């Protein structure tokens, strides 16, 4: 996909490089704490539940449900102007973590809370792939 008018692009850093590297391979990964066993998202250098540093990366099935959503009719950044309206959602993944994403590949009008969704991958730039979701 060609790069469109510049959108905000993640700049990977120490905590997040593994995540963006995996996304590039069309894998959605998340962290789990080896001390308290809880999952967390977004990726951090420590566990946000117990402050431990022993974290493992796991692959997500990419299946989840919409916890809440909004249809945005306004572009917060010029890069989104061509895509209005678009859906922003908070998605609960079946492994027990929660993330923000877009719901794509459907009419924004059909999105509902609790709707099952599955991950899809969108090439944002040659270096960054963004996990998004479609109706499952």
């Amino acid at each position, binding site marked *: 996909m060609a790069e469109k008018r510049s959108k905000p692009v993640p700049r990977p850093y120490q905590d997040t490089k593994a995540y963006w590297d995996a996304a590039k391979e069309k894998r959605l990964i998340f962290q789990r704490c080896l001390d308290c066993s809880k999952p967390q998202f977004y990726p951090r250098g420590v566990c946000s539940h117990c402050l431990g540093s022993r974290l493992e990366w796991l692959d997500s099935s990419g299946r989840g449900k919409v916890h*809440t959503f909004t249809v945005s009719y306004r572009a917060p950044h010029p890069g989104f102007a061509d895509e209005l309206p678009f859906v922003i959602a908070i998605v609960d993944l079946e492994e027990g973590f929660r993330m923000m994403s877009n719901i794509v590949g459907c009419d924004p009008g059909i999105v509902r809370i609790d709707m099952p969704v599955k991950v899809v991958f969108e090439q944002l730039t040659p270096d960054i792939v963004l996990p998004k979701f479609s109706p499952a």
Partner: protein
Amino acid sequence: METLGRKTAIVGVAESDIGRVPHKSKFQLSAEASRLALDDAGLSIKDVDGLFTIISTQGGEHSSMLMAEYMGIRPRFTDSTSMGGSSFVAYVEHAAAAINAGMCEVALICHGSTNISDRGGRAGPVSSKTEVYGPMQFEDPYGISIASSYALAAQRHMHEYGTTSEQLAEIAVATRKWASLNPKALMRAPITIEDVLNSRMVSSPLHVLDCCLVTDAGGAVVLTSMERARDLKKAPVAVLGTGESHTHRMISQMPDYTQTAAAISGRLAFERAGVSHKDIDVAEIYDSFTITVLLTLESLGFCKKGEGGPFVSGQRTAPGGDFPMNTQGGALSYTHPGMFGIFTLIEAVRQLRGECGPRQVKDAELALCNGTGGVLSSTGTVILGRV
């Protein structure tokens, strides 16, 4: 647990020129509001030894140092806690604690913003950044905005409790009625629930009339010890109880989309003040969006969780209603420079002094202010009382 014990008071309040003020910088607006608030107290800038301020926008880095330098003071207590629009309400707690501990005597809380002029006079996209460093790289690439963040909470509240757009609109309509009684309010023409529902959708379920204004404005509040307050120009307004907290920074991390940190800060403020909800005569609740008010009323405990919709129905918060709220017209209709918290304090003090003319709440003795900052992230709650 009366930790504050009426030992500190607000003695001066003021706003600067507000609305669209393209010829003045945010620094000037903050400094002019400070001068007016000090005049209101019968004090001068030379008396100020504690400074509490934050400028969240460009050029405001190291805010308390910057504003102290701008106004020519060298404080012995300085605080630029940055938790969004609630910061100024939280500063009342910080200032009261500092005064009680003898670390400063006259505390100045000030704020200035040219939020509309910075955008060339038009509300709309401001961000053109392309590279996102830090945790916001898990939100910005999805096109999140402040309005969309609050919309996510509104949608969830509707789903869980059956809250309706009509109920949210009640808040906007009632707030506009208060604004019509305030000559300084920017938007004074009456609106109806249908007007709100028919206004442009910004981010579902929030319409443009569910959203606050974007303006320029400055405001300032002066505190000192109750002992010193008694000798000043106007009747002191006692700081009875305060609380502050935050639960997240990014909307994707909000633990419960139907409850804000006001559940924590409000409980602390009520406990410390030793008063109950039915004692509050007037409430000034930061209304960045209609949903902010609804969640705050529930989180503060004015009604049960999920009952915010019925609570605000029937124009209960309008002039003449039995729950006077946002009596200057709020961020929805009076002014909103990006961080509104300080204006909740200014109006509460004026109500308790009986200075509000046609919008005066009769015999107001106790007022509650609640600031919300970030994306429903942080809150500061302050309960004030006539002495």
